[in-house]
């Protein structure tokens, strides 16, 4: 079972994704974290997040870049929550500077999907604004758009969250079965 959760900033999509993960919980129960470690402040924040999630039963794996390679270290058959695609894409584009960030992220996510029984993916709605004028940022939006379209095809359920309210784009029946 693969679920893609999208929505604007602060819409409650991470919370819904977490709820969906619990409904689909299996061992191993992974949280794939995507935040890039920049400095001590990041380290402290990440340590705090890891601790919070450990209390919820998650085993955190840091995957800011190179998700495809990291996937081979995951024990198969579990449930994973991946948060989020916009971080992953930015990291691949601006940090790892890979040739095709969109394809790199897609390949990474599909590799995780293949190993897991269940995967919940959080992405971000960032393409509904006036377009940026610099080509790098515009390319970033194109990459995220391409990743989202591809992952929506690969997902059984696609849900957009607006003010905490789910709007089901794909797999409505499945969604309500899971949440029941």
């Amino acid at each position: 079972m693969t679920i893609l959760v999208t929505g604007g900033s602060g819409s409650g999509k991470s919370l819904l994704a977490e709820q969906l993960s619990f409904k689909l919980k299996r061992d191993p129960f992974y949280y794939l974290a995507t935040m890039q470690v920049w400095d001590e402040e990041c380290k402290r924040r990440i340590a705090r997040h890891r601790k919070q999630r450990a209390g919820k039963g998650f085993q955190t794996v840091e995957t800011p870049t190179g998700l495809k390679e990291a996937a081979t270290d995951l024990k198969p058959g579990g449930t994973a929550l991946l948060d989020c695609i916009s971080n992953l894409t930015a990291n691949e584009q601006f940090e790892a500077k890979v040739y095709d960030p969109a394809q790199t992220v897609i390949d990474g996510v599909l590799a995780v999907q293949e190993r897991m029984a269940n995967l919940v993916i959080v992405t971000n709605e960032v393409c509904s604004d006036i377009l940026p004028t610099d080509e790098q940022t515009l390319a970033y939006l194109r990459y995220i758009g391409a990743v989202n379209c591809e992952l929506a095809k690969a997902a059984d359920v696609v849900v957009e969250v607006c003010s905490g309210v789910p709007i089901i784009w794909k797999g409505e029946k499945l969604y309500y079965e899971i949440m029941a």
Partner: protein
Amino acid sequence: MRLIIGGYAQGRLAYVMERYSLTEEDVWDAAKEPISKWKSQRVIYHAESLVSGWLSEGVNPCEACGELLPQWKDTILITQEVGCGLVPVTAKQREWREAVGRFNTYLAANAQTVDRICCGLSMRIKGKAEE
């Protein structure tokens, strides 16, 4: 008239091409030419770009568009959602963004169906599914 709306890079054109079995010749791109060059192609892509031309001529986009509506009975307009971010820094951008919002609203009010596209998926937000 049908309206397709959604964010940048969400697969709006691909959706239209597949759903209505169209080819490249059916698509006219408003970002590349002025509206006078439109030759009744079935699809008007980047409809939000029409607003730029009208604003630069000092014409109200909704009024200009109103004159074209009779010719658009069988046309599919693909437009972009541009109003879900921060308020733009320049006055010109603010004017454009506001005008596009009004223009999209006007189009939607006059459209038989409105499909919203997100992540390559569609949702009919106006009109019946079978229309």
